[in-house]
């Protein structure tokens, strides 16, 4: 099907019928020449391109240019985006030691958890009563899924966080337990636990999906604390979990 300039012009003006529009849009996918013609006739192409000429300005461009590293980066205390990007592939500086990058499966579960948690707002968990007997049942269910004793009093209230709910989720065929907490202001946090060996990665502080995360592992389980807080605060909280209730976990 060939189209005259007049038809194309009418398409651009939104003056074709729905059927004609649909037909043209179906044709154009496989017709680069038609795409080129339509783009050349588009009344906005030129003025929009003009409007963005000189954006970004030279000052900004110079600053951005200076920020490109000479070689593949290491984590730097830069702005958030840069820090995430750097830490994802290079591994994380702990003390002065550069650890190897985590295996992709560990990176994946952390990212999945962070993305899920990013959907949490205070209202997600505000109505959940910490004193409810349901929580007992949920914890028992989670404990069975992990074969791990989670009936630990100090898991309920720790580091300014109040346990609200325990959920059994799954990741790649393995149970993934999410313990939902809130702080005094109602901000949601989650401690996640899933089975999986250590594989040489010990501790990771990383911003994922816009949230601060801190993860660690022992010989049989992986742990992750995530929430909308400064990275350093999450790390402090995570250490309280790690050296507190989660230090001496017993199997069921």
């Amino acid at each position, binding site marked *: 099907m060939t189209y005259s300039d007049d038809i194309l012009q009418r398409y651009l003006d939104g003056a074709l019928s729905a059927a004609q529009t649909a037909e043209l849009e179906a044709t154009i996918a496989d017709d680069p020449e038609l795409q080129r013609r339509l783009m050349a006739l588009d009344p906005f192409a030129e003025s929009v391109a003009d409007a963005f000429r000189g954006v970004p300005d030279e000052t900004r461009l110079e600053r951005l240019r200076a*920020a490109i590293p000479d070689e593949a980066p290491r984590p730097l205390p830069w702005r958030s985006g840069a820090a995430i990007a750097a830490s994802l592939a290079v591994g994380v500086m702990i003390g002065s030691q550069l650890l190897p990058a985590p295996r992709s499966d560990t990176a994946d579960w952390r990212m999945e958890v962070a993305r899920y948690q990013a959907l949490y707002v205070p209202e997600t968990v505000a109505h959940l009563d910490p004193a409810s007997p349901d929580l007992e049942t949920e914890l028992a269910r989670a404990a069975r899924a992990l074969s791990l004793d989670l009936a630990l009093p100090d898991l309920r209230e720790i580091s300014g966080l109040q346990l609200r709910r325990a959920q059994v989720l799954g990741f790649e065929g393995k149970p993934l337990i999410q313990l939902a907490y809130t702080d005094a202001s109602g901000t949601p946090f989650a401690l996640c636990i899933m089975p999986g060996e250590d594989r040489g990665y010990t501790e990771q502080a990383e911003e994922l*999906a816009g949230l601060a995360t801190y993860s660690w592992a022992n010989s049989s389980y992986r742990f992750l604390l995530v929430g909308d807080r400064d990275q350093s605060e999450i790390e402090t909280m995570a250490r309280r979990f790690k050296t507190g209730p989660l230090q001496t976990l017993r199997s069921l």
Partner: protein
Amino acid sequence: MLFKKTRSSGLRLELERQLPAIWRFALSLSGKPDLADDLTQATCLRALEKQHQYDDKRPAIGWLLTICRSIWLNEQRAKAIRKTGGLYTAKASDLVDRSANAEMNIFASQVYTRIMTLPEAQRATVELVYVQQFTYSDAAEILDVPIGTVMSRLSTARKALGDIKDDGMIAAKGGQAR
């Protein structure tokens, strides 16, 4: 040694060359210049980390913009929305940071502002097709949507921009307003 330096210089040069394009696309996604800075920087870093994927015989821009979009959606968008309570609420005065560009005439400024107040998906599509002059097919690939979606986003954007075209005819006849 985790990374070899041997090939980074070529990619680094390419990044410098493509910086304006990356930044404009980052701006079209995020809607805000400071977010675009962060996103551009993260894109450059990620590209350098993934430089084994870089093929200097093929145009890198599509690859770079795909990285940019992925970082925006996966890592920065949710955070930006939480911090600012939404991305479409920026005032025109925040968006039009054009003081450094005295060449800019009023009509171009108006078009710029109007584009920046479009919803994110339309803005990004308009930027790729009108500003970067990607074909509809290439824009669809970068945005990971069917070509029909690109066409309909452009069509919606054209409707939203409709009256500026008429204003523009008048402004253009009146010459540059300085």
